[in-house]
Structures are given as structure tokens and as C-alpha cells.
């Protein structure tokens, strides 16, 4: 049943034990465990080593990232912070009685092995992170990164699945799970680069809403009392999802397909949906003392983290309902099977909760209770098989790993001006720019009847991209939340520091374009192997950029996740921090959309457009690997934010300039409005291609002619540069730049983009 393992052996054998048990601990950590059991005066059992392996995995413990996160990301003070960083999700002030809840994490490794199941259970996991705070999930977000879709099948490394297969599986997984649980999938991104060939990135985010007096912590507060019971409810425990966290804390290789398949869980949205009803009803009736979902590390991490630091726990493992009969105790203890939640209840209130379970046909069992001695004890059919100090488990070693930072060397070179019409169409049709309707429309983004500005905006028969999506969380209140998710791999590749700042700037631009004000951030940091100093250097620089920018804005990071080891012997992913931005709009009826509205309206370019071409779609198209990178300044952004929000009521359409530059922004706005423009860029002093394709921090706004004085005045007052660049008109893109003229029909533009 359980096996006693002697650690009184040489170092090689210690490492061998870590490998054979699949717990992924290094020698130093194995020494710490040996010392611990030496102090307990006995040998450990397999289940005890497994428990440590889970708790100390990179995925659960953040042992490589914690010190850097503390330095840059954590601790940004803001009055909206209610319960941030500490829990499964961040809780942020929304209005007098309500808070919103944000969670963002990765499901990269499972999705690389089993795209459909990996992505689906990613959604499942992030929903539980929100529900376990007592919150109702109201929106899902999913930024995705895949290898080049045209990658030659013959050159695919052994054991690697083709990006086309991965993409279709991941999208189907998100669709089939998200649509079934009835939470709208409203934002995200899809990005392609060969560096994601062996490690796709599947990030999932969820936003929820909770009444402030119903926020539930995962930690058992001092109000807990001896004898309070753990009720495990939802799905049964099986062999799916064994070692999910340790597998996510190592590089993938060609054997992963075979060896790690069982690390991927199997999702069941039709347990999740009623399980969510049960949890929220129990919370609403004030029956729950603490609640936590079962995710990485299974029961082991869940019970440890709930009890610590105020209590201990004793668990009767035979009471766990199983999917299969002959599971070993350690398998039950670490299995990451989906759709499970743990509640801590007063024994007298158990019946009230189980009555709700019965109506929804949700299974449950009492598996243990809390104790005052701060130990975790697991009994199995009358025999104690795990008995450890809880602090030893939940306070793993923290590392300050060596990191090296690459110096940024920038230079620009002379290039020839391109054939404009052809270049514009090529950029519009490039995989990273073109319409993502084929993904977005497969997700139900309307369920819940609270999606105010849509992920695709404009006319029903001519839809375009949005900047952010606005959700109305409460039926009786017009206040809304704007949601946008962003990353910028092509800038991150050149400079993790400036790339990170650009991402922050862009996510804020996206929020502001809809008429909302940035309010909080969540981050999902996808990087390579942290044991390599250059990867750690990328991580350090990126965190520095994100943190500095957020601090300067005074907007906090409230939740996040780190995913390391996104690399194989072939590729390491471009350092990819994904930032989820949340904004507040006081009245959703005043939100702004991206589509041009009316013939004759004026078009303005807001912001300082510069020759910052490195990493732009334009330079990438022509293979130019030089140029200056955009250097976003939070103070300049603050002015722009202020100016846009002050003029919000007269802005008819707004869209930020990002990938592809000004011309892509304008084309997207034309498509949504199903209408043309006539632009004259002569007054901006730069070569035409730099004006059209620079990705500097800017916005494009549509204004009625009668409002232009007020608009310009407010821009000036806020020290914001602006150019009046033309009018909404006709059904063509017509650009004049001194003697040059560029003309494309709306039909050609749509054909390239759609």
C-alpha cells in the first residue's frame, strides 16, 4: 500500500529516488527532506515524499520567481486592493457592496501534450480559482500562442504536434468547455511564432463578481474551530492528472507524449456547471467557512494550504470517492482530477450543504477535519501513512537564481521605400494581424447577457477587432469592467524590459479606447528554463519593466502566475508576459467602440508617432532585424489617458495603434464601419512608411466636425500631441502624403483582412 523509503543513501541514489518517484526535486532539496525525517527519527513513506514533491514544485511554490516578483510586481499599493496576490485570485473593489475577482494562469504543458483536454481543463481550473473566492464567474479570457501554421511537417521534431493540430484542439477545448459552463469567452489573442513550435502557450483568465460580505478565503481563519470538517465535492478522484505540477516544472521532450499523458486531466463541464451552482448557493447561505479548489498538487496541496498557518488537519483517505478502485494512497493524495472543490464546514451545517448537492446530483464526502496541532496527518483504513509538520511542507526553499542581462544594442539602417498598396495588403493578411473572427465566433461571448461592447465590433455584416470588451457585472448597475489581454512577443524578443513596458502601455491603451480607466492588472509570465541564467535574465528584465510601469501608473497587479520551462532542446519560447488589464467605466452606455461611424467626421491621430520600427510587422515582413524599439513612458501615457477620458463624450470611435501601425488601425476601423477614409499625412515629418507602420503608443479617434475645438483644446491642455489626419468618407482608403498617394478599395482591404 505504502512503501517506506530509506534516505540514508548516497547523493546519486537520492537523485535517483527523486527521478523514479517523478517528483522532480534536486539534490539540495532531497538533503533537506533527509534532514527533516532524521529529526522525525524515521524513514519517510512514498506518500510523504510525493507530498513534498508537489508542494515544492516550481509550479506550486514559485521558488525561482518569488524574490523577483516581490521586488517588482507585488506590493503596489492602491485603495482598490481588497485581497490581492495572496489567494488563488485577486479581489478588487468594484462598488460599495461588490468586488470583482481576477485570475490568470497558464495551461501550457498539458496543452502541448493533449491540446483539447489541456485547454479545456485550463478553463476548468481558472473557473474554480474564481468560484473558490465565493465569486460568480462572469467572463473568460484566453491568450494563445502557437508555432508557425505553415511549418513543414517533415521538419517537425520528434514527438511534437503540428501547430495546426494544436491550434484546432486548443480552440475546440476552450469552446466546448467554456460554452458548456455558460461563461462568456470575451477576450484574448492569438499569436504565431516559430518559438512556440514545441511549447504552445495557453493562458486562461477569468473574472468574477462577489458580494463583499461573501468573499471566502481559501485559508482557514482563526475563526475555524477544532472539529470543523473538510467536505470534498464534485468530481471523483482518479488517475488522470497525476504529477501535473512536476511535469509542468520541467522541459518537455520527445518522451513526454508517452510518459506524461496521465499528467493531463480530463475535464467535465457538466459537473463543473452544477458544482458552481452548489458552491455559490452554499456561500450565499453563509454555510462555508473556507473554500479552495483542487488544482495543482491535488488534495495534498489543497489541505496543506487551507490549514496553514492557523491549523493542522487529519484526513481519512479511504473516504475520498474514487473513479477506479485500486489506486495507491499516494495517487489519491496527489491526483489533480478535475471538477473538485473543498469546503471547510461547521459539522452542524453539513446537511444544509449536502441538500444542495443532492438537488444538483453532485457527489460529496467528508474526508477529514482540522486539528490544533500544526501537522498534516493522513490515515488510510486505520493506519497512519503521512504525518508531517505543515510548515515544512508549505514553506519550500526559495532561490535567487543567477541571471544575466543582455545589453540592448540598437541601430537603424537605410531601407528602400516599399510598394505601399501591396505592403498594406500583405500586412493586413499576415497571421498575427488578420481577423480572428474564426476563433472568436466559436466562443459564446454573449451568454449571461452582460457583454456590452463585443469582441468583434461594427456592423453585423462587417465586423472588426475591438480593443477591449466591456462587461456589465450587475443587473441593477450601469458600472462596467473593461477587459483586455495583451502581449508583444516581437518586442519581447528584442528587449524584455522595453517589451514589457510596451505591453503595459498597450493594455492600458486598449482599456482607455473603450472609455474605461485602468484599474488593476494580472500577469501570466511564460518563460523558458529558469535554471539557465540568460532565461532568468529575461524574466528579471520583464518583471522590472512590468512593475516599474504599473507603479508609475499607480495601478496594482492583483493576481498572477509564472510558467517556466517552456522550452525544449529545439526552441525556447520568446519571453512572453501576458498582461490582463481591467478597467472601470462608470456608465457602460458611454463606452466607445472601434468602428468608424459617419461620413464626414474628422479623424485624429493622438500621441507622438516616432520612427520606432524594430519588431514592427512592417520590418518583420521585409526581414529587417534592426531599428529602434518603442520606449513607452508611463507619464506620457497618463496624459493621453486623461485627455481621452475627458473627451470621451465627443469621441465617436477610438482604436489604439499597435501591431501593424497606423494604417492597420485605420483599416480595422473602416471595416467595422463599412466605410472609407480620406487621409492627408503631409504635416507629419517622417517618411511615409514610418508614419504608416510605426507602432508607437498612439490612438486614432473619430470626432464630429462641430466638436473639434473642444477636442483639440483638451488635448493641448493635457500636453498630448495630436494631428488631424483626415475624414471618414467614401468607400476607399485614400492616403495623401505630399506628392504620394495610396488608394485601396474597402473590398480589397476586407479580402486581405478576413
Amino acid at each position, binding site marked *: 500500500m505504502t512503501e517506506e523509503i530509506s534516505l540514508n543513501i548516497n547523493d546519486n541514489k537520492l537523485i535517483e529516488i527523486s527521478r523514479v518517484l517523478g517528483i522532480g526535486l534536486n539534490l539540495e532539496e532531497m538533503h533537506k527532506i533527509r534532514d527533516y525525517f532524521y529529526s522525525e527519527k524515521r524513514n519517510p513513506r512514498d506518500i510523504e515524499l510525493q507530498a513534498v514533491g508537489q508542494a515544492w514544485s516550481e509550479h506550486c511554490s514559485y521558488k525561482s520567481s518569488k524574490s523577483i516578483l516581490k521586488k517588482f510586481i507585488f506590493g503596489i499599493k492602491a485603495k482598490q486592493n481588497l485581497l490581492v496576490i495572496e489567494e488563488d485570485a485577486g479581489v478588487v473593489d468594484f462598488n460599495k457592496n461588490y468586488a470583482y475577482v481576477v485570475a490568470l494562469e497558464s495551461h501550457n504543458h498539458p496543452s502541448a501534450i493533449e491540446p483539447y483536454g489541456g485547454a479545456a481543463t485550463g478553463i476548468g481550473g481558472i473557473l474554480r480559482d474564481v468560484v473558490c473566492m465565493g465569486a460568480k464567474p462572469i467572463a473568460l479570457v484566453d491568450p494563445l500562442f502557437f508555432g508557425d501554421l505553415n511549418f513543414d511537417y517533415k521538419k517537425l521534431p520528434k514527438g511534437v504536434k503540428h501547430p495546426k493540430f494544436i491550434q484546432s484542439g486548443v480552440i475546440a477545448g476552450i469552446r466546448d468547455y467554456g460554452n458548456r459552463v455558460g461563461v462568456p469567452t470575451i477576450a484574448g489573442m492569438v499569436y504565431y511564432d516559430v518559438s512556440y513550435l514545441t511549447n504552445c502557450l495557453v493562458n486562461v483568465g477569468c473574472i468574477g463578481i462577489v458580494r463583499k460580505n461573501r468573499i471566502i478565503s481559501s485559508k482557514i481563519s482563526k475563526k475555524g474551530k477544532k472539529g470543523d470538517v473538510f467536505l470534498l465535492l464534485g468530481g471523483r478522484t482518479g488517475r488522470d492528472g497525476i504529477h501535473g505540477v512536476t511535469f509542468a516544472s520541467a522541459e518537455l521532450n520527445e518522451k513526454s507524449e508517452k510518459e506524461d499523458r496521465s499528467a493531463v486531466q480530463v475535464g467535465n463541464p457538466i459537473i463543473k*456547471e452544477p458544482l458552481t451552482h452548489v458552491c455559490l448557493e452554499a456561500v450565499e447561505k453563509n454555510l462555508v467557512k473556507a473554500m479552495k479548489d483542487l488544482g495543482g498538487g491535488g488534495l495534498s496541496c489543497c489541505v496543506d494550504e487551507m490549514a496553514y498557518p492557523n491549523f493542522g488537519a487529519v484526513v481519512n483517505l479511504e473516504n475520498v470517492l474514487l473513479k477506479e478502485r485500486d489506486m495507491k494512497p499516494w495517487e489519491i493524495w496527489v491526483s489533480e482530477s478535475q471538477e473538485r472543490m473543498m469546503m471547510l464546514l461547521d459539522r452542524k451545517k453539513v446537511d444544509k450543504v449536502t441538500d444542495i448537492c443532492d*438537488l444538483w446530483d453532485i457527489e460529496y464526502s467528508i474526508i477529514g477535519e482540522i486539528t490544533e496541532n500544526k501537522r498534516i496527518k493522513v490515515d488510510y483504513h486505520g493506519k497512519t501513512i503521512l504525518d508531517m509538520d505543515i510548515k515544512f511542507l508549505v514553506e519550500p526553499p526559495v532561490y535567487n537564481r543567477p541571471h544575466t542581462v543582455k545589453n540592448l544594442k540598437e541601430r537603424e539602417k537605410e531601407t528602400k521605400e516599399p510598394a505601399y498598396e501591396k505592403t498594406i495588403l500583405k500586412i493586413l493578411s499576415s497571421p498575427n494581424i488578420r481577423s480572428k473572427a474564426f476563433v472568436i465566433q466559436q466562443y459564446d461571448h454573449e451568454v449571461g447577457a452582460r457583454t456590452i461592447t463585443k469582441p468583434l465590433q461594427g456592423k453585423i455584416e462587417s465586423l472588426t477587432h475591438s480593443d477591449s470588451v466591456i462587461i456589465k457585472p450587475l443587473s441593477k448597475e450601469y458600472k462596467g469592467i473593461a477587459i483586455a489581454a495583451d502581449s508583444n512577443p516581437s518586442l519581447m524578443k528584442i528587449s524584455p524590459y522595453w517589451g514589457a513596458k510596451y505591453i503595459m502601455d498597450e493594455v492600458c491603451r486598449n482599456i482607455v479606447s473603450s472609455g474605461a480607466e485602468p484599474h488593476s492588472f494580472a500577469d501570466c509570465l511564460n518563460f523558458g528554463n529558469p535554471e539557465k541564467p540568460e532565461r532568468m535574465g529575461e524574466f528579471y528584465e520583464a518583471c522590472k519593466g512590468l512593475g516599474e510601469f504599473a507603479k508609475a501608473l499607480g495601478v496594482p497587479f492583483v493576481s498572477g502566475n509564472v510558467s517556466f520551462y517552456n522550452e525544449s532542446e529545439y526552441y525556447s519560447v520568446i519571453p512572453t508576459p501576458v498582461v490582463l488589464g481591467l478597467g472601470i467605466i462608470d456608465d457602460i452606455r458611454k463606452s466607445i467602440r472601434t468602428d468608424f461611424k459617419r461620413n464626414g467626421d474628422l479623424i485624429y491621430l493622438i500621441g507622438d508617432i516616432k520612427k520606432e520600427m524594430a519588431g514592427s510587422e512592417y520590418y518583420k515582413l521585409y526581414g529587417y532585424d534592426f531599428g529602434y524599439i518603442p520606449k513607452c513612458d508611463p507619464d506620457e501615457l497618463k496624459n493621453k489617458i486623461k485627455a481621452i477620458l475627458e473627451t470621451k463624450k465627443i469621441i465617436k470611435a477610438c482604436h489604439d495603434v499597435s501591431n501593424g501601425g497606423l494604417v492597420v488601425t485605420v483599416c480595422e476601423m473602416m471595416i467595422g464601419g463599412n466605410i472609407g477614409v480620406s487621409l492627408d499625412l503631409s504635416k507629419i515629418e517622417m517618411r511615409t512608411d514610418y508614419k504608416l507602420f510605426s507602432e508607437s503608443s498612439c490612438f486614432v479617434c473619430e470626432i464630429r466636425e462641430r466638436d473639434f475645438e473642444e477636442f483639440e483644446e483638451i488635448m493641448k491642455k493635457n500636453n498630448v500631441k495630436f494631428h488631424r489626419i483626415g475624414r471618414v468618407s467614401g468607400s476607399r482608403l485614400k492616403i495623401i502624403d505630399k506628392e504620394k498617394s495610396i488608394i485601396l478599395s474597402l473590398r480589397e482591404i476586407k479580402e486581405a483582412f478576413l
Partner: protein
Amino acid sequence: MIAILRMEGTNNEDDIYNAFAALKCPVEMVHLKQFTGGAKKELQKNIFDYEGIMIPGGFSAGDYIRAGAIFGARLKKISKELKEFVKEGRIIGGICNGFQVLTEVGLLPGINDIIVSKPQISLAVNDSAKFECRHVFLKHENKCFFTEKYEKSEIIQVPIAHAEGKFITSKRILEELKENNQIIFRYVNRAGNYAGYPFNPNGSMENIAGISNLEGNVFGMMPHPERVFYPYLHQEKKKVGDGKRFFESIIKYLRRGV
């Protein structure tokens, strides 16, 4: 009182509930088990305590076999009561998955018999072979008790969100539906013409989006009026939500007295 019938996987019940509640119409969530048995005794409910039943959208029981099949099969346990319910002039409506349930349980098309034992209509996999969520144009072809407040031939904008919404039936039933004015909504383009994909989002026969029974008190449609109850939920700017009159029509009918 209106009952909104839910089970595991129905997930649009809140939206319908909120619509009725906003119009101050008495409304209650009822789990299917509370009608068909299986819930605790004190939780059991009698369908005749309600004037109307709405079946919401979602993925009841996961819809893994065929959309609405399991919900329909479970609902059949009270076929006799349902027949009586409809006969008395009470109303039953189904939106999206609810429409699929009504065809599975045999309450639609409701031409000669109130309820038929074998489904006569199928809402099959979309021609595009995928789930699609977007706003579409609908033409109000004929009135029923659920659409009394819309003008005949009026064009409204309503979102769809389904993978199985392709309306298929036999030639005979199609002819009867037409003859009896049972076709309530059809998919059209902005100008109001029948225009094929993408305006007809799923390949439905004759662009059919929603039908009623002969009496007009049982109704099903694939698009979601509850998702455009308010003007700000529309894809394009509107002064009033196009879905609002759907609920007002139902309430008007109920207030006429059952």
C-alpha cells in the same frame, strides 16, 4: 407565475429570469427534478401551479449525444401533464437548447397532436460544422402569443449561439407549418431578403429560425431574445432592446387570464 426549467448544463436561465423580473412578472427557477420526481419531497413542485414554462438555452446534460435529447427524454416522464398543460392554454417556450428540447419531447411542431411521441423536427449540426456566436437579422413572419408585440414583417437583430440549429423537417410538415402560419421567425439580411449563409447562420430549411404550435402557445426559436433585452446589449446602436417585446408579449398573454 412562470417556471424557468433548469438542469445540469442549462446556462441561460439567469438571463431569462432577469428579463421577466425586470418586467415585474412573477418568475421562479425550477429544477427539472422538482417536476419529474427525484428531488426531496418538500422540494417537489406541480406544473399546474404555473401559467408558463420557459426552457432556457445551454448544453443540458452536455448535449453530447444530440442537443436537447437527454433533457427531452427526462421531460417525457410528465408527457401527460404537459399535454394537459398546453391544452389548457398555458404556455411553453424554448430558446436555443430549449427549442431543441421542445422538438425532442414532441411539443413542436404541434400541428395535429399537442405532443407527438417521435420527433418530427430536427435541429441538426450547422452547415458550417461549427459553433457560431454572432448577431443576425430576423424577420417576424407571423404572430404567435410570444410575439404579439412585434409588427408583422418587422426585422429585428438578435444574437445566435449554437452548433446545432439547422431546422430540418419533412416536406409535408413544412407545408403544414407554412399553411398554418406557424413559422414565426426567419433569418434574413439587413434589407429583409432571404440571403443564405452567413445571414442564414446554420443552413435551416427555408431560413426558419423559430416556430410555434398551431395554437400559438408553444414556441421555440434558436436566437436569443433575452440577450438583447436592453438596447446596450445590441451589436449595433438601438434605442430599445429588440428582445424586450418578446417578454412583454408573453406577459400580455398571461395577463389576459388563463
